[in-house]
């Protein structure tokens, strides 16, 4: 059977990184192909090349056997390729109909023609949504329903190859089930799907075959039936998955660093309690919407409406003000590096020393040599090249940017509390191991670490204590050998018993 999409020897280089190296790929009609790989493996570069968003340095793309040079997304659309990006691209105040045709090259200046309505209706019907009214505004739909509109958009444009980039990352289980069912239906109609996901369960449930990328290179393409879960993880990581995480805490319990009692954030979190011992990593596990990331934000002082009693080393700390928390050495590393972590226009050095200006100044006047010394020592400890201290921070790779944020936490003299949301999101394998090492170093210095993560393998690998959350309530608490992926997964998806 002729392949609907065939990519041959595609390479792409960015300043400082080789994003893709000689990748070949071929997709049959009616095939669902999983595209797996760690963050930074080159998946999004690959998709962007397919969609004509960026141009490859070399290599060719053939669609239905014809070599094509896809120069812009409109052209990819005309060739029958469609992408549902990770972030939804819907205009919330417009109707379903408008959103389905938004950005389509076919639409003339005025598009309220009967044929467009009909084709939109057909697209919805294909997804089993014939009863949805086309004039309904998109903001009246749930996130999962909006995801379906994105897929309907591709169908209305008669896309033969659908590329879905982590379509289920933000969805509830019921919505995921529905989407997977719909995708199977599309396969039966002979459409091909490239399915990018981190959730290995979905690979095995939905996909026919799986392609693994690692560091921009093609590692393997194999039918799903011929590969095991462990094998797949090893292909993605390039090594056995046990090497990834450092040794668990070995030092004896040194007492309580932070105690939280009755933490409450209206509408998000109820009666949350936690004890974070010195030298231990506490991991709060929960799906999106469980309130897990709100725990760390509230403890960092970023949530004005948070209430509850918090003590650090036995002394109470008031919530709701970041400077007050920082003064007590409670530091926060955000999951949104771009918006809430990095100072993009500033240098690597300025980013590293951001929290320690007080220690390098007298009467408000900074000592540049002291800042420089601090910066150099921090850069060495987190493993950032000291020759890049004067570079603009955005020129660093994602992993190195994250190390900068951890460097800030290392800067303080006394160990405190480090709060982290998704500390390894968007980071390649190598930097990931480095970050785990830094986390353990902080533990050894007596800091208490509290993190959230939606990556369960990470939770099991790094945590000393795990607290599971479901819809703003604590489900269970595990420690040491009691931490198991199966029970955590069960807790955060379908809790059987909720302890208040």
């Amino acid at each position, binding site marked *: 059977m002729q392949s609907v999409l065939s990519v041959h020897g595609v390479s792409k*280089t960015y*300043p*400082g*990184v*080789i994003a893709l*190296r000689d990748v070949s790929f071929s997709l049959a009609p009616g095939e669902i192909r999983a595209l797996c790989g760690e963050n930074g493996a080159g998946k999004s570069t690959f998709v962007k090349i397919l969609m004509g968003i960026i141009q490859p340095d070399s290599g060719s793309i053939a669609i239905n056997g014809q070599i094509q040079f896809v120069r812009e997304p409109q052209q990819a659309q005309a060739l029958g390729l469609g992408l549902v990006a990770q972030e939804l691209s819907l205009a919330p105040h417009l109707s379903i109909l408008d959103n389905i045709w938004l950005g389509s090259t076919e639409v003339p200046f005025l598009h309220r023609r009967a044929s467009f309505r009909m084709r939109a209706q057909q697209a919805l019907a294909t997804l089993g949504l014939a009863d949805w009214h086309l004039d309904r505004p998109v903001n009246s739909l749930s996130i999962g329903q909006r995801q379906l509109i994105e897929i309907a958009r591709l169908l209305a444009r008669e896309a033969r190859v659908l590329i879905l980039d982590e379509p289920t990352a933000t969805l509830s289980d019921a919505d995921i089930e529905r989407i997977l069912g719909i995708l199977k239906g599309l396969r039966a109609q002979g459409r091909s799907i490239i399915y990018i996901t981190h959730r290995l369960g979905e690979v095995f449930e939905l996909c026919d075959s799986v392609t693994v990328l690692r*560091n921009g290179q093609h590692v393997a393409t194999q039918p799903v039936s011929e590969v095991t879960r462990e094998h797949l993880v090893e292909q993605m990581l390039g090594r056995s998955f046990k090497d990834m995480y450092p040794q668990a805490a070995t030092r004896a319990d040194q007492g309580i660093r932070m105690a939280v009692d009755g933490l409450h954030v209206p509408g998000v979190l109820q009666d949350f309690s936690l004890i974070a011992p010195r030298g231990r990593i506490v991991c709060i596990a929960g799906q999106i919407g469980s309130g897990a990331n709100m725990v760390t934000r509230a403890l*960092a*002082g*970023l949530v004005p409406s948070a209430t509850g009693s918090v003590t650090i080393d036995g002394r109470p700390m008031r919530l709701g003000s*970041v*400077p007050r*928390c*920082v*003064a007590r050495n409670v*530091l*926060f590393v*955000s999951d*949104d590096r771009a*918006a*809430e*972590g*990095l*100072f*993009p*226009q*500033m240098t690597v050095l*300025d980013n590293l020393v*951001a*929290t320690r*200006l*007080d220690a390098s*100044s007298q009467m*408000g*006047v*900074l000592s*540049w040599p002291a800042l420089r010394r601090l910066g150099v020592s921090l850069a060495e400890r987190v*493993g*950032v*090249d000291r020759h*890049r201290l004067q570079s603009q921070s955005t020129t*660093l*790779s994602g992993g*190195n940017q994250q190390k900068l944020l951890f460097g*800030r936490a290392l800067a303080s003299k006394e160990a405190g509390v480090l709060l982290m949301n998704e500390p390894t999101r968007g980071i*390649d394998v*190598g930097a990931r191991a480095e970050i785990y090492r830094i986390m353990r170093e902080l533990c050894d210095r007596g800091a208490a670490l509290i993190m959230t993560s939606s990556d369960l393998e990470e939770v099991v690998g790094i945590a000393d204590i795990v607290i599971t959350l479901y819809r703003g309530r604590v489900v269970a608490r595990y420690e040491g050998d009691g931490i198991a992926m199966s029970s955590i997964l069960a807790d955060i998806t379908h809790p059987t018993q909720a302890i208040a």
Partner: protein
Amino acid sequence: MTERLPNGADSAVAAADLRWMRFDRARVFSWAQTIGIIVLLAVIFATPGFLAKPSILSFLTTVSFIGCVAIGMTLITISGNIMSFALGATVGVTAMVFILASNWLGFDFGLVFGLLFGSLLTGLQGLMIGWVRANPIIVSIAALALIYGLTQAFAEKGTIYADPGIFPASVKGKVGGVPIEFIMFVLSALIAQFILSFTRFGRNLFMVGSSFRAAEAVGVNTWRTITGAYLWAGFFTSLAGIMLAVRYDAANMDYGVAYDYDAIAAVLVGGTAIGGGHGSAVRTFAGAMVIAAVQVMLLLRGLRQEWQYLAAGLIVLAVIILQARGNGR
């Protein structure tokens, strides 16, 4: 160390290639900028009469008024609040308040009172922006309207005159042949640069301007920092108003008209990022010199005021395009 490349030989080749690619565009645009400045300077210096002593002296005086406002504007721009439309009006109203206070209790009192008044007036806007989180542009336009409205209501005659002999001769002359206004301008630029480079407040200002949320997350007191930026902006702006009042022994609300625009032009020509988080007072100094020199040149070549606005507009446009392209969009 930072980015992993596959193996030794290839990575050396790749790195060499990349270095060439990375510098290429930035280099082209920085050359364009340099050539543009050289051509501009050549045209300016070739203008008949520009290098004559009276012309230079008048240039150094006029550039100082706008220059001080531009120094203040630099702090606002770096703090991430784009610009203020109220600084021109602040120049006018401070000049008036300064003369009233001087007539009442003498020059020294007037000076302190004027500086305090201008700083607090602008600082209050900073408080609205930093603490209430109001939109900076709207706040500055509202302040502009309020300032004009109040001065119209209270100063019906329009122009206020200083009592004869109230200003000491020493503040009206030259020091070593250089107009005292220009010396104050240079000092302002140095003080502002010191604040930006060597104080915690200055560093906080860059952080707030670079990323407000990140600054908040690392524990910078954001509202104090923004209020501080406006306080200092008001300080430098009121200095311009006071210098104008001293020079002309009078004050009215026409003094600061269009200063906001020339000031932001100087800030941008000086390379301060309009989005905040990056910039320098010393470079704003250079930007103000360029803008003022172009205006003097046009005047000497016999072109009307309207052409001066057009020229300033074109220069700003060119700088914005060069900056945007040079930064890789």
